[in-house]
């Protein structure tokens, strides 16, 4: 069977699973939602079929499983988003349409040789910084939950740091490919441009309080630095710098300090000062409410989960118990309804995606492709770790989206770009393999 036929077969399976998911939600909640939910399943399946046709035309030799895995993760996300609020699922659907458009455009544009991107590395570097600082721009940005990481246009919210992540990976891949030998020698002159761009990026993230993205960017940077230079000392130095830097920042920013306290001891036994309303409350009722309630949601799911549509997410007054449930905290919703069995399967799916991504990096023949595939794959894995690790108290909680699953347009676009990038690299590697 050809690679693309395998992809089609896998996508059909995903389409069937999506239909089952939507049907389950419909049966569980038919008293509250109108019919036609299967229409969503058909619609999403249709969109991924379009994406499939694009891959047939542009990257026939690319890995056949990345797109179906991305489709399955999207389907899981959209099913849960639909269950939490059908209106948002419709909006997410629109974003997926745009995402498929961007995906198709990227593949058509770069189908012959994506390595032209290398030439524009500084454009990507500057773009990354621009996107990061965009929410800081007067009139565009909006502060949500103490972080200024959203921009608004035409009624749509957009989180530019998601796209900035892709731009940064392209820049780093190109820069490291060119400079990796000299960087390994450790001369300050070669490090200059890198440090400048990186420094501005970090500064930007801290002024916008987008801690999750800061951690993600830094993680990607260190990982790619290691791949390029193979110098463990650099990694150790970078991690050390990060720890010192975070400590310094936490001293000056109550926002960061609070996150760390919430991480170490989310439950207080005595009432403490609650800045939100100025009263004395238990920490779990105030600062760490979101984290703790999310843990309750996960715990309530237990081994088998409550079943799709049967989880408890709203209070007696109809209010949502966990803020940002369909974006940053979608994992807690999934964990409650699908249980350990379900979310472990989702995490294994992420692992499978990461394995495919790194295989592409290994099969690529040039440095730029290897670094790009490694950056995209590791970024994908690390982003998952930062948000799910934050939710499950492995690391301090920082708001960031769960790739492919969370609600949010910028996240959808960034992830489609990520898949497009990996497919391009894979296609090229396989083409060269076939030629030899």
């Amino acid at each position, binding site marked *: 069977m050809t690679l693309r036929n395998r992809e089609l077969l896998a996508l059909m399976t995903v389409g069937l699973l999506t239909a089952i998911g939507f049907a389950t939600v419909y049966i*569980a909640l038919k*008293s*509250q939602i109108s019919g036609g939910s299967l229409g969503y399943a058909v619609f999403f399946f249709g969109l991924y079929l379009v994406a499939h046709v694009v891959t047939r035309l542009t990257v026939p030799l690319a890995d056949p499983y990345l797109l179906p895995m991305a489709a399955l993760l999207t389907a899981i996300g959209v099913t849960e988003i639909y269950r939490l609020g059908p209106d948002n699922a419709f909006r997410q659907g629109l974003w997926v349409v745009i995402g498929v458009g961007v995906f198709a455009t990227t593949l058509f544009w770069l189908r012959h040789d994506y390595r032209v991107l290398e030439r524009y590395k500084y454009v990507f570097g500057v773009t990354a910084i621009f996107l990061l600082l965009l929410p800081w721009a007067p009139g565009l940005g909006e502060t949500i939950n103490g972080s200024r990481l959203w921009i608004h246009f035409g009624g749509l919210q957009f989180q530019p740091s998601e796209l900035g992540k892709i731009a940064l990976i392209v820049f780093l891949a190109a820069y490291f490919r060119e400079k990796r030998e000299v960087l390994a020698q450790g001369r300050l002159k070669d490090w200059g441009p890198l440090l400048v761009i990186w420094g501005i990026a970090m500064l930007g993230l801290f002024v916008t309080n987008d801690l999750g993205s800061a951690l993600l960017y830094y993680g990607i940077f260190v*990982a790619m630095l*290691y*791949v*390029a230079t*193979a110098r463990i000392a650099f990694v150790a130095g970078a991690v050390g710098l990060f720890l010192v830097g975070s400590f310094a920042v936490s001293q000056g920013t109550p926002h960061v300090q609070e996150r760390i306290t919430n991480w170490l001891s989310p*439950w207080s036994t005595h009432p403490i000062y609650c800045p939100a309303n100025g009263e004395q409350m*238990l920490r*779990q*009722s105030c600062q760490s409410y979101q984290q*703790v*309630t999310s*843990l*309750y*949601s*996960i*715990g*309530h*799911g*237990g*081994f088998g989960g*409550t*079943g799709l*549509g049967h989880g*408890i997410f*709203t*209070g*007696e*007054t*109809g209010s949502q*118990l966990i803020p940002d449930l369909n974006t940053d905290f979608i994992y807690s919703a999934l*964990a*409650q309804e699908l*249980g*350990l069995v379900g979310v*472990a399967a989702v*995490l*294994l799916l*992420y*692992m499978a995606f*990461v*394995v495919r991504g*790194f295989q592409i*990096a*290994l099969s690529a023949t040039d440095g730029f492709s*290897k*670094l790009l595939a*490694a950056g995209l*794959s590791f970024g994908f*894995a*690390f982003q*998952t*770790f930062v948000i*799910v*690790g934050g939710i*499950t*108290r*492995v690391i301090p909680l920082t708001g960031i989206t769960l790739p492919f699953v969370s609600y949010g347009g910028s996240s959808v676009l960034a992830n489609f770009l990520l898949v497009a990038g990996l497919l391009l690299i894979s296609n090229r590697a396989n083409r060269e393999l076939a030629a030899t």
Partner: protein
Amino acid sequence: MNKQLRHLSVFALVLLAVLIVSTTYWQTWAKADLAARKENSITNIERLTIDRGKILAADGTVLADNRKTHKHGLTTYTRHYPQNDLASQVIGYATNAGTTTGLEQSLDDYLTGANTNLTNTFKDELNRLGGQTVHGDDVVLTLRPDIQRLALDQLGGRCGAVVVLDAHTGAVVAMASSPTYNANLVNQPKGYTKIGRIRGTCGDHTALQNNATVGLYPPGSTFKMVTAAAALDSGAYTPGSRFNDPGYCIEYGKRVSNAGNPDQNGPEAFGNVSLAEGFEHSINSVFCNVGMHIGGLKILDYAKRFGFYSVPPLETPPDESSASGLYKYDKHGRSLWTPTSSNDVDSGRLAFGQANMLATPLQMAMVGATIANKGVVPKPYLVQKVVAADGSTVTKTAPQTLGQAIKPSTAAELNQMMQLVVRGGTAASVGFPPGLKVAGKTGTAELGLGTIYDAWFVAFAPADNPRYVVAVVVEKQPNGFGASVSAPIAKAILEKLLAR
């Protein structure tokens, strides 16, 4: 670069594997701890969505059910007590916030359907996956609402308690505690404050307490049942044993005078009397001598056989029952005390139920039931059966005993002596109808408050073939005696129970 790529991919996979481990931790290991946190809004809401089982009286009268509300796509249930104040201390309550007391607490697993056996676990799981409401099991009690209501009416807001047992099985027919409260208040704003304001005539404790099981009162002369049981069963005395009653007995070189005994009827000094007559007229000097002769430890030994010194095995939460026995007072308050030598005990006064002897109404009812039941202590119980939502029986209580406390012959002798009390003794004035043969014992316990007494009456009927046992205590009655205050309550109840 491939070596670094392999390292990095392993690192990335380890990071994701850590997430599976951490999620497993919260969903299995820590699940119970999370669920038990009281600010856990998810379990709090889930609790409201459970259709808690009903609590029913023996005749099917609904004592507790739910009110259903459907709002914001959520069906919730709030506990409702249709009989308001009827048996609030026994049933307890279940609040929306998750606090439970009484049977609502101890039977919570049944009422919420959380009790597990294989068939209903499977059924519940299917229902849960189908999004169905969890229906708890219904509990059928042994209480008779008509008797319970009569007991409450008879107490009339005076502090005290009434316990009615089935003499053979130990089934609790009525368990009234006064003052009582409307259990529906607990789910209303400021409900607890309103309950806290309820004071009975004694004025010093709250309506929430179940006086019948947790209330400790000096049993006074009703304890003579235990002393007489010890005296007869040990073979030291017979009902015909003779005593000289000069109007007092001498203990520790001092006179313990009958004059201070409000329970006694007839002259202050009876002269030459039998043990049976001493029991009939509740003569303290007779029992004082019996106590000093057989010793306090012997009396306590018999008391233990009747169930003293242990918490009666009722289905209500253990902390809502007290053990009866000798209590000592120190800076930590009151605590149960087991003497090791008769010299430590005021045996003479213990024999007539004073000297820091404290008993619950349930315990005294058990003493009466043992005598009625030929010396065998019936195990008291409140729960007749548990019925699942589909009508199948989950459990059914088979009556049990707590052992043989005294010989059947001793029980028969005590039965006769208790009949004397009602026929011509301290309870003769109560006026039981001629057709109703009652055996009883009065008690009028001194509290060290002058002429304010705790008035007791323990009785069973019909005396020849006992069916019901009643124990009544009314607290802090000014010039109120067992015969004048508590016996009429027992009379009203026995008349209703045994009316043809």
